[in-house]
């Protein structure tokens, strides 16, 4: 396996990370996928979860994202996210606060559009929580 892939993590407000890595594992909406050099060009949506950056066989960094898009082309992986945070900085209370907030919003929502977006928020908070629990044990 030769070469590295260029990895870019971008949020609407700024470029969060731009680095090289051996492999990056991305939580695609159809399942996680690892991106290595020579990956076929791909555009995928992301589900809320954790991006893992591998260097020399070990995980260099894990970043929690709330969803977004990944684009792979020419040994370059670009991930567009709305919110991202290194997993190490994420705390359970934070996630639970988010979940509670979303549930409250759902309880208060009256019209269908607000209900739908609140439901989405609850689902997102729940899956973030699950992802956190999953990685907390390893």
């Amino acid at each position, binding site marked *: 396996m030769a070469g590295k892939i260029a990895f870019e993590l971008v949020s*609407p407000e700024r470029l969060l990370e731009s680095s090289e890595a051996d492999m990056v594992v991305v939580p695609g909406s159809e399942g996680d996928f690892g991106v290595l050099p020579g990956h076929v*060009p791909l555009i995928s*949506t992301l589900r809320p979860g954790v991006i893992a950056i591998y260097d020399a066989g070990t995980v260099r960094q894990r970043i929690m994202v709330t969803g977004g898009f990944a684009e792979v*082309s020419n040994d370059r992986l670009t991930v567009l996210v709305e919110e991202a945070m290194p997993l190490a900085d994420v705390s359970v209370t934070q996630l639970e606060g988010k979940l509670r907030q979303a549930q409250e919003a759902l309880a208060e929502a009256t019209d269908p559009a607000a209900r739908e977006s609140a439901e989405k928020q609850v689902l997102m908070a729940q899956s973030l929580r699950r992802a956190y629990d999953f990685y907390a044990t390893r």
Partner: protein
Amino acid sequence: MPSLKEYRLRIRSVRSTQKITKAMKMVAAAKLRRAQEQAQAARPYAERMERMLASLAANVRGMAGAPALLAGTGADKRQLVIVATSDRGLCGSFNSTIVREARRVIRGLLAEGKDVRVLCVGRKGRDQLRRDFAPLLAGTIDEVGRKRLTFADAIRVSDHVAQMFAAGEFDVATVVYNRFKSAISQIVTVQQLIPLPAPAEVEIKADGAKAVYEFEPSEEGILAELLPLNLRVQMFRALLENAASEQGARMTAMDNATRNAGDMINGLTQSYNRQRQAVITKELIEIISGADAL
């Protein structure tokens, strides 16, 4: 002819105004720098998104059942004009130029027999447009980016627009804002948001290695998620440009005001001195002619 005391008071008042405008200029300069940095930082995201959209849209456009955000509703009868201005004044012609352009656009659409509704972002635009187009106003969103413009602000605005679109309140949405060129020059821009105009130039530029992508889950699925997000990003970009323009315009306006105040103080000081001289001369003449009379 004002008295000496009146001159003194006048000079003092102009001087304190000058201090205020000078301070405002400095504040605007600092805010401008921050706004520019923000606009710069937001660029990569918008660029990447544009590239993705271009390769997607090319495949999906023309297919039946393309998302409405891309293909439109098939009509252009009902138009929404989003006028992005600032909440505060004292920034030169910043708001008036936007409003003037907005008025032109609205009049043009009305003349074509379209139904026009106006959504104001920022208080100043609402205040000015209310006079002419009160019945067309569909709402105002203010307090956008009061301290610092965040993506959440853009979401607030664009979700409002998206909801109106989903409720079928309009067919075409256009945003009017000031694009930032430099501190002294801002360009009024009219940009169509819905349906998304064809990103033609991007496609031609896409270098020879234009990849044929695989899509997960499907092109339509991705597009359905990407388009609302793109709306937010476009709105964010417009608001960022506007924020930078506002501060730039304010800086220039306040710089002019400071300079004007300086000129005014000079003029007043000169008049004051002349007046003082005249008073002294007059007193001397009075003393001398008094002595002569003896």
